């Protein structure tokens, strides 16, 4: 039964991790615009578009 202590600790740590991730995502502005990304994903990346010019991860909107 003692394994339950460990499981509780693991589950709490996991849940807290998700909460922190959620805060991080919110602070980064991921929930500010929930429409434009749905269109953006449909654009083809043309050969001329070089990878380093394009931001790879969502940047904040502050």
């Amino acid at each position: 039964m003692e394994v339950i202590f460990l499981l509780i600790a693991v589950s709490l740590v996991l849940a807290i991790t998700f909460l922190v991730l959620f805060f991080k995502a919110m602070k980064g502005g991921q929930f500010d615009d929930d429409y434009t990304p749905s269109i953006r994903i449909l654009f083809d990346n043309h050969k001329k578009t070089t990878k380093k010019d394009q931001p790879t991860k969502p940047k904040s909107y502050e």
Partner: protein
Amino acid sequence: MPTTTQKSELKCYHCGEQCEQDSLAIGEKIFCCQGCKLVFEVLAENNLCTYYDLESFPGESQKSKTSRANRFDYLEDQSTVDQLLDFKNERESHVSFYIPLIHCASCIWLLENLYQVHQGIISSRVDFIKKKVQVKFLNEGISLKELVGLLSMLGYEPKISLAAIDQKKTSTVDRRTVKRLAVAGFCFGNMMLFSIPEYFSEAELIAENFRGLFNYLNVILALPVVLYSASDYYLSAWNAFKQRQINMDVPIVLGIIALFFYSLWEIFALGNGGYMDSLGGLLFFLLLGKVYQQKTFATLEFDRDYKSYFPIAVTRLVQDREEVIPVTKLEVGDLILVRDEELIPADSLLMSSSASIDYSFVTGEEVPVLKRKGELIYAGGKQKGEAVILTVQKSPSQGYLTDLWNNEAFEKGKEKLLEPLSNRISGVFTWTVLIIATGAFGFWASSDMPLAVKAFTSVLIVACPCALAMSTPFTLGNSLRIFGRSKFYLKNASVVERMALIDTVVFDKTGTLTDPKRAKVDYQGDPLSEETKSILKSLVSRSSHPLSHRINFWLGEIPSLNLDGAEEQKGKGIQAYYKGQLIRLGSAAFTGFSSSHSKEIGNYVYLVIEGFEIGYFRILSGLRAEAGQVVKSLDPAYELHLLSGDHPHEQASLKEKLGPSIHFNFLQSPSDKLDYLGKLNQFGRQTLMVGDGLNDAGAIQKSRVGVALTDTITHFSPASDAILDATAFHLIPNFLGFAKQSRKIIKLSFGLSFLYNVAGVSLAVQGILSPVICAVLMPLSSISVVVFTTLATNVVAWKRGLLTPKNN
């Protein structure tokens, strides 16, 4: 096939407009104007023709664009630039623009590929819903002025207004509440898990030594809920307490405190389970309701004042040299140059010989008014035609129109006008609960002291205002969404409550009940020669009477002639001599027109030359098709008023169409309108004002609920509580009815949560409340209230015709 292309099918490759000729063409692609062609060339050069593949004709016509080169010179002013920038360091700057023209996938694609057009641009991102684009650029590579110029050249001119400079926009979604909700949800979920052994304590699911641990974990998890998630409620309850009032948050705080400390006592002193999970649930549901109520319409601005309309920069003449300065630096006595389609930023005297000022922005009247040298021109007018020179008389913040904003009506919010229904009920609720709790305590105190304490706290715990506190936000939040779907956008949820009490509806005439674009002019009589038309043109352009404007508009762009001895009798007519002949235009009495003619509805203007009756104009005010029907269906239940800045010439015909019970008020200046609403309020009327122009701004602000009617919701509308799309004008009676019904729904759901409380309290006073009952009762009451209010508002809205499939 180019050979089979017919003339009628010539569409501009850029904007899709009909082209008159195919002289502007590149290969098979035809362009309507140089502007469109230029945009295409720039895009083609930079390999950006995907723009045209994503949507057909994605561009905006470039025909009417003003292409003045020094238009953005004010962006060289360093202080203006600094105010506009979001961020700046040695290398790069970030700036956000509001671009109303963003309308399709192509727009997003092009604006996010700006870095391919100009080396200086690092990246850009579009927020489609807010119609905003954030651009990051290298300070060395491109200046802000060049950037704005580039955007404008591509057809996406940013809208930069004084208001945007004055205050930095705040995030529309209240992130703080969402964070509190997330914490409460996290703690609530985990606490429920740890409470499961407690729910099934009879079944002995788990060894005794775990129970203690689980309870202590619950206490730890409850701390962030009590200390962080609930903090707003303490603040609000404390503020109410200081003002000797009881709002909804007082019983909530009472419940939180009772739950928390009683549970602490149970866990540490008695070794029992406590009610920490219920505490978490309470705050989770409460905050959920709060977030649900915060529906915002991100693209709409409700708090605009004159600063949002006025131009940000103006051309000043200093010793015949032009310089572009920000409007804020304009001083009395400055000479300014106002070009075609430019707005006049301050009350000024006209120095040029004549100007044609379009006040549609202010009054809704779209026919330009002719002004002569030396006349005062109010801020807010738009010059039509060639550039004019003006001398500034008042600073932009103190003009005739902007004076309205100094009225105290603009200072305080309307939220305080009406005490929300929930606050009044919660006062009664709190006292009742306290009386029952002390009653139960007194009853048991003599026989069984521990039971008395338990009964007292149980009543406080179970008489949870949760369901009570949730009925309002969920009903109003859902109403807000339903209104929004029917193109009626409310500023916040409290507007629904105020709308429910409306008993007086005030309409503005021009632009609201009437639509100047629909006005019809008919001429009957001897045919008019070109010369006669020119005479008429010069006659009517001297008059400021609305009927003269109509005729002026009907005559169109024709040359005017020099007349002698022109003279206007206000409200009667106008006369002048041409080649020795007396020409009179006006009412039948003024002109002496006596021949009989058909007397249909409309306004008649007669033309008599040297005693010969030439003919007459029949002018129909462009009443909105639904106006009559709307007014009539409001008639018995609401007191109706009409305010108009115009002459009363249309009163008879309006009365006929709108019914006899409406109160007419003509010749109202913007501040008259404000005072009129103030007077109605003093008589205790609950007023709803529907207006459109800047001249209604005062009245809209003074009314209990101010509605701005507009054809394009993202464009122009004065500060208001609600913005109504003109296509939904006919639904006004339904909206009012629906608001009344939602108030009833709130009351009904109060009744429902009252039933739960009676059930819970009757258990609590006997001292037999257990964690299981608490854990079941609390979410059950909350969820059932949410389901009830949501279903009820939807059913009512559907019955009122607000939720037809078309609107969805």
